[in-house]
């Protein structure tokens, strides 16, 4: 089978670098249709963005447009629509490349989400390099998706999972990282921003410490990609994973960035169509990267939707989004900390987007139900980070997580809602 892969000839498909001065949250809110929804008769106050973000019209429209005008299978047909769908798909790859400032588009692998990206690395790079007695280093503030794939790998190989601890604020104790990194360490996997605590980890520092011992680093960027400017070259990391749906794009699509030399050396992930160059019953020759890791028909409309979402973020400017959320987080932290009986869980020096707390005498689940009656959506529970809960001696927390469309008025509504909880439980 010969395969002609045509890159889009129109560079206008790439990210438009528009300069936005300031950040008008009211104008931005109009771009998100769901924010008009009434919940139990109240305006929706959506503060569960770390679970999934809402979608701008641009992304929703792009998906509809794709199905109405461009849909065909990619990378194989010679017909016009297939070419056009392929161009759309590869244009999305290019947008992601620029969003992460990756050197090459071939370093961007489309997957289902951050979870699959991490599993891909564990199952390919991990299985090829980790042997009995080796070690994998993760941290105490990881989401289950950056724990379990490594645990499974270690179990299979007879390797050891080592954990970098956190202090009472939720900051990683980096001196311990130095102690854990040894000749048997095969990979370090760490989140950029903690989903349960909001801690922003010192990735550049972690990468330098690990690279000094020739150990590659995977970053779980699920919470960072929608909140911070991510530059994989500046960070220096070897792998970076994120989910489209947390970055204002659709569900079902996610990204693994990997340095090309690593990706090329790695065995394939799943076998199937599109990941091969030639197949005989004696031997299959694999396709080049990134296609080697993209077996089967991918989520084409998802890639198109993600492309539109990331372009939307670029138009707003990630620095503007980060500044807006930082201001809101400071405002919310101040207001919530003042409420008697509240304990904020996670007080790291540098935080982004996430505010976890517990309330004396009221279980987080009850907080969630009572706030929901006022249209306020927060997450309650262990946030897929049970080791973090254990570290802070709680079963669950209430978690407020911000998005680019949240406002101070919404935080005020949240604070009023928390005061109402006291009334119910008085």
């Amino acid at each position, binding site marked *: 089978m010969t395969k002609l892969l045509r890159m889009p000839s129109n560079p206008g498909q790439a990210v438009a670098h528009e300069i936005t001065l300031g950040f008008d949250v009211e104008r931005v809110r109009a771009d998100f249709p769901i924010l008009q929804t009434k919940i139990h*008769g109240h305006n929706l106050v959506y503060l569960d963005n770390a679970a999934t973000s809402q979608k701008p019209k641009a992304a929703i429209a792009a998906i509809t447009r794709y199905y109405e005008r461009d849909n065909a299978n990619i990378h194989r047909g010679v017909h016009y629509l297939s070419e056009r769908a392929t161009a759309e798909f590869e244009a999305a790859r290019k947008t992601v490349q620029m969003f992460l400032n990756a050197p090459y588009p071939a370093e961007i692998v489309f997957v289902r989400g951050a979870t699959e990206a991490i599993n891909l690395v564990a199952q390919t790079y991990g299985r090829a390099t980790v042997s009995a007695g080796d070690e994998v280093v993760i941290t105490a503030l990881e989401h289950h998706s950056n724990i379990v794939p490594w645990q499974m790998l270690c179990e299979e190989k007879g390797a050891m999972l080592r954990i970098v601890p956190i202090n009472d604020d939720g900051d990683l104790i980096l001196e311990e990282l130095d102690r854990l990194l040894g000749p048997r360490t095969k990979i370090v996997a760490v989140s950029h921003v903690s989903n349960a605590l909001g801690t922003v980890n010192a990735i550049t520092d972690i990468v330098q410490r690990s690279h000094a011992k020739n150990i590659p680093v995977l970053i779980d960027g699920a919470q960072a990609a929608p909140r911070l400017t991510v530059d994989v070259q500046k960070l220096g990391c070897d792998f970076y994973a994120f989910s489209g749906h947390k970055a204002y794009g659709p569900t079902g699509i996610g990204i693994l960035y990997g340095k090309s030399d690593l990706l090329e050396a790695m065995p394939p992930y799943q076998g199937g169509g599109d990941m091969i160059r030639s197949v005989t019953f004696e031997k299959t020759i694999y396709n080049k990267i990134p296609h080697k890791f993209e077996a089967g028909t991918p989520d084409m409309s998802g890639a198109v939707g993600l492309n539109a979402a990331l372009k939307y973020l670029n138009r707003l400017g990630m620095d503007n989004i980060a500044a807006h959320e930082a201001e809101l987080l400071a405002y919310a932290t101040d207001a919530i900390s003042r409420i008697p009986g509240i304990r904020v869980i996670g007080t790291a020096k540098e935080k982004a987007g996430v505010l976890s707390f517990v309330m004396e005498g009221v279980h987080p689940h*009850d907080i969630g*139900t009572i706030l929901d009656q006022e249209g306020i959506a927060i997450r309650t*529970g262990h946030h897929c980070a*049970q080791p973090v809960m254990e570290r802070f001696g709680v079963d669950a927390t209430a978690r407020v997580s911000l998005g680019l469309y949240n406002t101070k008025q919404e935080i005020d509504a949240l604070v009023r809602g928390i005061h109402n909880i006291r009334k119910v439980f008085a």
Partner: protein
Amino acid sequence: MPDLRELYQELILEHSKSPRNYRRLAQANRKAEGYNPLCGDHFTVYVQTSGDAIHDISFQGSGCAISKASASMMTQSLKGKTTQEARELFEHFHRTVTGEKNGESAQLGKLSVFAGVAEFPTRVKCATLAWHTLEAALQGKQDPISTE
């Protein structure tokens, strides 16, 4: 629109603040652990049966107001009942909190304060966790049971 006061009835709040029979039961001959992995609620239910009768029953653990009050009131209402009566009561309770049946208050007694849960589908598991755990204890299950 569901009313919070229907869910957080005074009796429920009172039981969640001062749960009854909240202790380990040294003489228990049946015991089970129940866990809701979605929210982290977990309870241990202890039962002391003599013949077919529930001689004593208690619980320990942590959870939200609904799950804790439900466990507390369950232990209160089952002391002295037969295991068969307990199962029947659970059936009535379950149908009430899932909204399959209204009323039934004659059989449910005080437990009918949980009828408001039916308006809050996400909280049904909270209200039934202790009961599922009891069922496991009576069946002599060894592994912790889960709502999922």
